[in-house]
């Protein structure tokens, strides 16, 4: 689902490009709830807007900087505007 022809990816990556955000696409190294969403037939991306942050999930002293957190809200504001405005798909008539 990360091809330019995919309308959702186009909306997601296009919004990131507008924000001058660099993305790195990867396979998640563990399991999340996304696997059930994908198995039910819906495209899903795993994204937590945390850059400049050491990977500390499940670890001691897990933390997040408030500026990174607040920037993440701005990022979602832009992503949601783009995703919720994707024009009707062929299947939606």
């Amino acid at each position, binding site marked *: 689902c*990360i091809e330019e022809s995919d309308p*959702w990816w186009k909306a*997601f990556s296009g919004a*990131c490009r507008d924000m001058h955000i*660099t*993305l*790195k*696409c*990867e*396979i*998640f*190294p*563990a*399991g*999340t*709830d*996304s*696997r*059930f*969403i*994908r*198995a*039910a037939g*819906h*495209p*899903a*991306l*795993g*994204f*937590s*807007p*945390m*850059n*400049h*942050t050491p*990977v*500390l*999930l499940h670890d*001691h*002293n*897990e*933390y*997040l*900087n*408030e*500026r990174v*957190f607040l920037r*993440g*809200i701005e990022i*979602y*504001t832009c*992503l*949601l*505007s783009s*995703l*919720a*405005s*994707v024009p*009707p798909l062929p299947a*939606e008539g």
Partner: protein
Amino acid sequence: RGQDPGEHPSVTLFREYLRLKTVQPEPNYDVAVRFLERIAAELGLGCQKVEVCPGRVVTIMTWQGTDPQLRSILLNSHTDVVPVFEEHWTHDPFEAFKDSQGNIYARGAQDMKCVSIQYIEAIRRLKAEGKRFPRTIHMTFMPDEEIGGFKGMQLFVKRPEFQALNIGFALDEGLANPTDTFTVFYGEKCVWWIKIKCEGN
């Protein structure tokens, strides 16, 4: 709710959520559901609760689009967090202590209470700006993810309430990245759970 008058209200809300002890193996889900219901009321969003199995409630908040026939955007997150070894923490993991650099220490700060509040605050801002979009946006708040989702998402996707969301595309958690770049995950490894029984002698 805020002690620090100079603090951004979104940060204050994040820290409040981090203080709720939704920690495995006995997460206080009731307190999380009440918190979410309060926010839905504040934002004027529809709020639905689906008890997928006893004591395991999925909370759904909905911002209706202008063309509700279209498939929706799903913003998913989980409310539970993994346990802690408190002796290895420099601060109480459920205090949400913020240091002078602005680092907020808490179990769930990255995985993934940040994301739940970011979804909420992004929608709060868009609504406050008077924005409307064609597609409906649903936020789902899931129990049980950290122990496999078997009493959470796995059951929820089988429910008629899930079908009714009419999902076109979903976002869920990713991971932090120490560099300037953001990581995005388009798939994940297959899970193969094995049970090992060790008998002592």
